[in-house]
């Protein structure tokens, strides 16, 4: 066999319509489409402020073929908790509620609501599609922005100082039943994780890396290739965490130099070779920590 025949693993019907307002080559609609394929029509989406607030379409349009609730930046997890509670009160225990937030709405502004909901183990799936900055408002850094990256608030003469926040460790520390990372470049892995999450009750968390051509300053057709490279080179390992303690990798991560991954993104153009080495060291160190978690649990 030469190729995994993807159509045998992924549901065929799209619950996302064309004509949405994502930029060309954006990973966010690919991620949404895959997630909705996996969840099916019995789904409701809560959307705090993020790129997707625009992608979904202006009033009176919606690009989703399932109900969608726009809400304020910091409230994704709180509103999802409420909608789920409302559904249960009406006797609907089957509909899956997801909160679909960007990295800003997850790592920064929505973290308090997310932490609260996770601590109460509210019954919804929180999905963060992470393009590593506030892209919708014009590329401001978030706590998901990687070290060394250019954004409008971390200009090239003073680029991002902080490494990316370890959101998976934060979520695992809440001991929620299921947390996972996923990538648009690994659609079968992504769909399987969403399907698995759907069968679990309680707070489930999914972190999807979503390359952004204008924000990362890459070509429109590089999105999937970069997402794939991020996984292969261990920048964004694909894993699952069950009950906050059992860590598991779900694909192979051959490793290798991250130089090509960095150099192909013009948001890192100003970095010296030495600085790229620093990123490599950071990636290697995190991989070591992660491997340790996989081996020994936390």
């Amino acid at each position, binding site marked *: *066999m*030469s*190729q*995994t*025949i*993807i*159509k045998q693993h*992924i549901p065929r019907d*799209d619950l*996302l*319509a*064309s*004509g*949405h*307002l*994502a*930029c*060309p*080559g*954006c*990973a*966010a*609609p*690919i991620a949404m*489409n*895959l997630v909705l394929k996996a969840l099916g029509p019995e789904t409701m989406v809560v959307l705090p402020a993020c790129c997707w607030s625009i992608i*979904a*379409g202006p*009033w*009176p*349009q*919606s*690009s989703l*073929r*399932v*109900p*969608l*609730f726009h809400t304020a930046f910091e409230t994704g997890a709180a509103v999802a908790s409420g909608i789920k509670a409302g*559904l249960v009160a*009406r006797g609907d225990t089957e509909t899956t509620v997801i909160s679909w937030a960007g990295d800003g709405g997850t790592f920064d502004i929505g973290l308090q609501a997310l932490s609260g909901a996770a601590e109460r183990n509210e019954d919804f799936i929180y999905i963060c599609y992470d393009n590593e900055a506030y892209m919708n408002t014009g590329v401001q850094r978030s706590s998901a922005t990687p070290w060394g990256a250019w954004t409008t608030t971390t200009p090239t003469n003073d680029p991002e100082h902080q490494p990316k926040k370890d959101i998976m460790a934060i979520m695992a520390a809440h001991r929620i039943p299921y947390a996972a990372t996923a990538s*648009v470049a690994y*659609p079968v892995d992504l769909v399987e994780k969403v399907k698995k999450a759907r069968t679990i009750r309680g707070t489930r968390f999914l972190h999807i890396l979503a390359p952004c*051509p204008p924000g990362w300053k890459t*070509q*429109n*057709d*590089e*999105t*999937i*290739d970069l997402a*794939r490279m991020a996984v292969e080179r261990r920048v964004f390992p694909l894993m699952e965490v069950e009950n906050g303690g059992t860590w598991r990798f779900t694909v192979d991560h051959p490793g290798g130099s991250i130089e090509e991954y960095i150099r192909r993104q013009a948001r890192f153009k100003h970095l010296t070779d030495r600085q790229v080495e620093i990123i490599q060291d950071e990636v290697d160190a995190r991989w070591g920590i992660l491997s340790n978690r996989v081996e020994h649990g936390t």
Partner: protein
Amino acid sequence: MSERDVTKPHDTGRKIPPIAISETSTLVNPTGSWKYIMPRYEDRVAPCNAGCPVGIDIEGYMYLIGQGRLQEAADLLVRENPMPAVTGRVCHHPCEDSCNRASLDEAVAIHSVERRLGDMILAAPPPPAPERTREETVAVIGSGPAGLSCACFLARLGYGVTVFEAAAEAGGMLRLGIPEYRLPRAILDRQIERIQAAGIDLRTSTRVGTDVPWAEVDAFDAVFVAPGAHVGKDSRIDGAESVSAIRPGLEFLKEVNAGGRPDLGERVIVVGGGNTAMDCARSALRLGADVTVLYRRTPREMPAIPQEVREAKQEGVEFEFLAAPIGVAKEGGVFTGITCQRMELGEPDESGRRRPVPIEGDTFTTKADTVLTAIGEDCDLSFLPGDIGTTWGLVEVDELGESTSATVFAGGDVVDMPRSVADALGAGKRAAIGIDHFLREKAGEDVGEVPLDDLRFGGGNVSALRYSKDADPIPREAPVNQTVTWDQMNPHHFQTAPRHEDHFHDAIDLRSAFGETNFGLSQKEAIEEAERCLNCGVCNRCELCLIFCPDMAISRREDGGFEIDMRYCKGCGLCAAECPRGAVTMTREGI
């Protein structure tokens, strides 16, 4: 929003503040207007097809096997190659050298799959002879691969064909030159019977120029000349003429292949590095001799098929490189061996191989009971009339095999250099097209020029299916006649899988055995091997483009293909970048 809208305030019967609700879709937004470049499904040519001297749609039959359509795969194969059971065994398979999969792991074992399909074809009764639709008749001189190929394709084009064969049985070099352990006679016989069943009149033991005059073949509406190359080149060993132990290798092979088992003595030297030399060496080995191949260059320059060399070594043939025979060694007037000159490699010659240069004064003598010379063959063209142009002992022809004389076409070993079964089969096919075109034009049909570039697979040989404008069993999307290269493909979606290697006879049993040494693959293995094919350049409906299109602009068509809705395609290029096989092209045309 959707029909099952539970967020509407009146739904609950309670007071909820009014909120804005979307009830239409984004489908009203023609976001495709943002693009400055757009994708197009454009199938390309797989490199194996372009690399096949016969002009076989290899990728096509692999695709059909992958779909479980074995019979259609066999039909497509035999449509372009009249003797797959033969080529599956003896072809030097340049298709595998050009296979893109080699960049991923290992080339697909195309020859093994072809052989399996070829044997499957032989197991079934031959199809009914094609209908005779043309009045004209064509004479074919020689029943080797070139002659039989041309005859077969001409019969399929509706002509009456008569084949003249000098030997007692048809097959040319396939029968006379190739030993049984590589090509069992039962296979060859059945393959030839099948070709004959196309309604071909085969006249064996009929040498043109001797048994029938040239005028008799010239009376046909066209002639295809493919008598092969049967005259061994002079060995250039001083004093060899008077020594009967030094003989042309081809003559020895003909004797053995006809059932003769000559006594060669204990020690045999074979001179040469080509396929004839390998055949001589391995045949001599089977007659019980110790065999050494003497070659004046190094293993790198050997023209023999590497697989043949490997097998010869495995069977125990010794090799002496950078040595050329120069004289006869005798003791008391009795032949004892040959003296040889040590060589070294100098500058590259016109063939690109480094030229062997003698090392002054460095000679040695080696013992031999028999010396078989296999340093190439010449053609006997003495039967041809003088108005047919020749150069360096080869007939001059154009791309469709037409010689300087209008009704005479030629192909195979009298034209090709280097020579191979596959090239001969391909030349026969081209000449059949050339003859058909010539005769139609002569009959007053408005045929125009043969669209040769369009008929070729990429830059490779011509397709008979394309020439006849027959329906292609493979659904092809706007095909472009360009070979797809590995860097135009996306290897990330492929998994590695080891190549299935042919099963071989145990080397220990080989001496004195002329039975087939290579057993090929089982049906199951051959199908698995076919499934390793990447279908380079051709959409096989894997649907990755549908998954990766961020704009849901690609949809499935009723006929199995895909359609891109340009109202919504933003021209990001992800479909083209991620297509594993390079079947999507980005273009600015039409924007």
